[in-house]
């Protein structure tokens, strides 16, 4: 076992830049020790080890951020905005004026990853990622601090996501464009992508909030059966089937299996999305992600239900490739997202 593991590590290191490899391995190692075999999670240690950063009202690299606590939903969201051009305005948080009265400024509601269990909106890796989104896509980002498993199982994360979406939709200071509306896109990586899908479904069903697009960055899906990609890539690129199973077990209701509709979107219990006013999607799949077959099945399923999906399939990309902007995949990703959220601009 030790031998084959060494081969895995070496192979992986050839594909991924060294600093990315170190970052993701470090996370992986920590996560391994936080998950207990009985399904419980060492939350104290997790919070302790997590690298978190505060928001900053004085812009850094053209982006500033602030945290907003919404009393009614008990949600903490971190808002990122492009820096005001006028330096006199730096440090002031305006919660009244819209983002713009002329042009459309997309608002991306972002759900961070972490397999429903790890990370927060103020985790350094996600804070940095959101800032890059703001800068490169010329958008405003709201990162949602949803409740995590195993302390809060399905459907808490979706409930929080839906609450956050409604909250964002009703913020006058997130409006833009001549029609003075909040132009919302949902986005998320890993479990965040899963949340984005489910929240989009709720939005479509309710008809109350219009979501202009979904951006799913190697979203976390699964199912009972073991797909080819899972068998082939198990343990090779930072992720194992065993840890995926653990996270699903921690998130899904007790006693449920991975064919639960939260996990297996188009499985035996999946919802029918035909006829629903479901937004267009941009799905990004890393070819070396072991759940890529489930993600491809998702893309198929959404297309079959009559909805638009743009698939960005990145060869030789592993999970977490977007944490550090040191590879082509990152650049491609940002370009795609930028086009995706700005295509509706008047």
């Amino acid at each position, binding site marked *: 076992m030790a031998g084959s593991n060494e081969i895995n590590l070496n192979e992986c*290191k050839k594909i991924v830049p060294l600093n990315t490899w*170190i*970052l993701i*391995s470090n996370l992986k190692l920590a996560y391994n020790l936080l998950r207990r075999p009985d399904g419980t999670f060492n939350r104290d240690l997790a919070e302790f*080890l997590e*690298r978190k*950063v505060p928001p900053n009202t004085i812009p850094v690299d053209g982006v500033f951020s602030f945290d907003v606590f919404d009393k009614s939903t008990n949600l903490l969201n971190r808002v990122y905005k492009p820096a005001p051009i006028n330096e006199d305005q730096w440090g002031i*948080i305006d919660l009244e004026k819209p983002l713009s009265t002329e042009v459309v400024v997309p608002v991306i509601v972002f759900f961070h990853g972490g397999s429903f269990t790890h990370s927060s909106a103020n985790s350094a890796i996600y804070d940095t990622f959101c800032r*890059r989104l703001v800068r490169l896509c010329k958008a405003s980002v709201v990162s949602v601090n949803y409740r995590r498993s195993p302390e809060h199982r399905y459907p808490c994360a979706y409930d929080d996501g839906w609450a956050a979406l409604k909250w964002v939709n009703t913020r006058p200071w997130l409006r833009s464009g001549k029609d003075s509306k909040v132009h919302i896109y949902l986005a998320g990586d890993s479990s965040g992508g899963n949340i984005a899908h489910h929240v989009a479904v709720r939005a479509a069903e309710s008809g109350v909030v219009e979501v202009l697009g979904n951006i799913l960055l190697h979203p976390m899906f699964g199912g009972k059966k073991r797909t080819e990609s899972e068998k082939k890539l198990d343990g090779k690129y930072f992720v194992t089937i065993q840890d995926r199973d653990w996270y699903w077990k921690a998130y899904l209701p007790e006693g449920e299996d991975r064919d639960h509709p939260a996990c297996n979107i188009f499985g035996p219990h999946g919802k029918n999305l035909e006829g629903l006013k479901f937004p267009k999607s941009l799905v990004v799949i890393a070819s070396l992600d072991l759940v890529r077959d489930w993600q491809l099945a998702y893309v198929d399923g959404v297309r079959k239900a009559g909805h638009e999906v743009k698939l960005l399939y990145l060869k030789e990309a592993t999970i977490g490739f977007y944490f550090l902007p040191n590879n082509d995949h990152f650049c491609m990703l940002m370009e795609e997202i930028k086009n995706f959220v700005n295509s509706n601009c008047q």
Partner: protein
Amino acid sequence: MLRPSRSLTRYLPSFPLAQHLLLHCLYRKLLPIMGPYDSGAMTASSSSPGTSPSNFDGLLAGAGYIWRSSDLQKVAQRLECLENVVVTSPSDVSHLAVDGVIHHNPSVEASWVDSLLSELIPLVPGSESCSAAAFSDPHSAGGSSSPCSSLNPAAVIATCTDQSTNQHQHQSQQPLTVVCTDAEEDSGIRLVHALMTCAGLVQRGDLSLAGSLVEEMKALLTRINTGRGIGKVAGHFVDALGRRLYQRVRVSVTGVGFEHEILYHHFYEACPYLKFAHFTANQAILEAFHGHDCVHVIDLSLMQGLQWPPLIQALALRPGGPPLIKITGVGPPSQDGRDSLKEIGLKLADLARSINVRFSFQGIVAFRLEDVKPWMLQVSRNEALAVNSIMQLHRLLWSGSSLDLVLGWIRNFNPNILTIVEQEANHNQSQFSDRFTEALHYYSTLFDSLEACHLQPHKALAEMFVQREISNIVCCEGSARVERHEPLRKWRARLVDAGFRPLNLGSDVFKQASMLLTLFSAEGFSVEEDEGCLTLGWHSRPLIAASAWQAELQGNSQV
């Protein structure tokens, strides 16, 4: 025979010998190679591409990890080794490795991986989050997040301020910091950090952000025990901040009135501070009245006159018999039409009569001390005069002239003694955040000490009394902010300027105060002597200071 270090054994108790040997080799060979951090401070949110000038990988820094680019290969190797070791062991062992482990301070180390392998702390804060306090209580294996002693708010705040000020002094000489992972402790620390950040925001005028931080803190408060410790103190401060930000009309809690007197009484009963104040002042007054047949005490805030029965009794018992005692008590007008000053005067008169002491009382009704005119006090030439101020003079500091006015007429009376007791705190600084931080320290210690007191209902109402002080300091400004506490050194300067000289309270007073404290109070209180003044504090942090003064000699003195 190779043997792994003791701590590694503790980490992985059930490893077979071969793996122990492997670990030992790793331990020996893979000592951390990072040197001390240079002072090119990096913000965790920097997203500068490539390598920064100080050779740290800029991208990893953005993710919260500080490593030199030149070290990355070695770090990668170590990660691999650790992974091999962990992977070959069953996952339940690796879980033991964490729960039974000594955790290091992650804001100081670059990689906890290293700590697991080698027990040495490499580096540098990776993020701005406040780290946990150091408790010298290493875990023993088997207890996951074993409880520390109850969270000492003063200690938490001390460490927090250290961290925020030492952010850019990265010590490699910092000793092994051993920490308990306790969710509540962590929330408490976050809370303190958030409080200080909020104070900074209020100071900068960033009020809407301060407001959202208040909301966040309220959320944090729901996660910790607000019945005691850091939660209780923090709760009061969060409330006060909230009120400062959101209340359009600032209800000025000036600490006057019937309710205030009740709370004061409970504060008196619950803990030794006021008793100490009264005792020390009375001893000094007793000495100053030695040999005089006519004595007059002016109490600048009578309250319920709790200070005077012991003095009257002591004067009754002095050799040669009691003098004629006159007490003048200053107090605010009663709100319910009663004449509360007169009522207290009558009670004191009753007591005096019962022990055959000739006694008279007069009440001076004044809402503020600066409204009192000297002629109202009816000080006569043949009497020995003592002026007594318990926590009153600081209320005059909002206006430069008020204190001068009052000290002026006190000085003109040339009293035999002026006894002053004040909170030993620096709550009158010009910057809000400075005041706030000071108050957080001070009241944490005070609440700590209150926890040692058990008398109910006194304790709960005493806390209310204290909470009003906190409110006043945090919420109010201008003339409404009356709790302008200043430390002894500042009072010394002011009083000397105003023409007074200090009197040494004397070692007898010190001994007696200490003795009374031991007899009647909980462990932890301490009386200290400070250049002729006495302070009472909690665990060597003075919280209240008593001093005695006389007018500087000008021509004839009455002493």
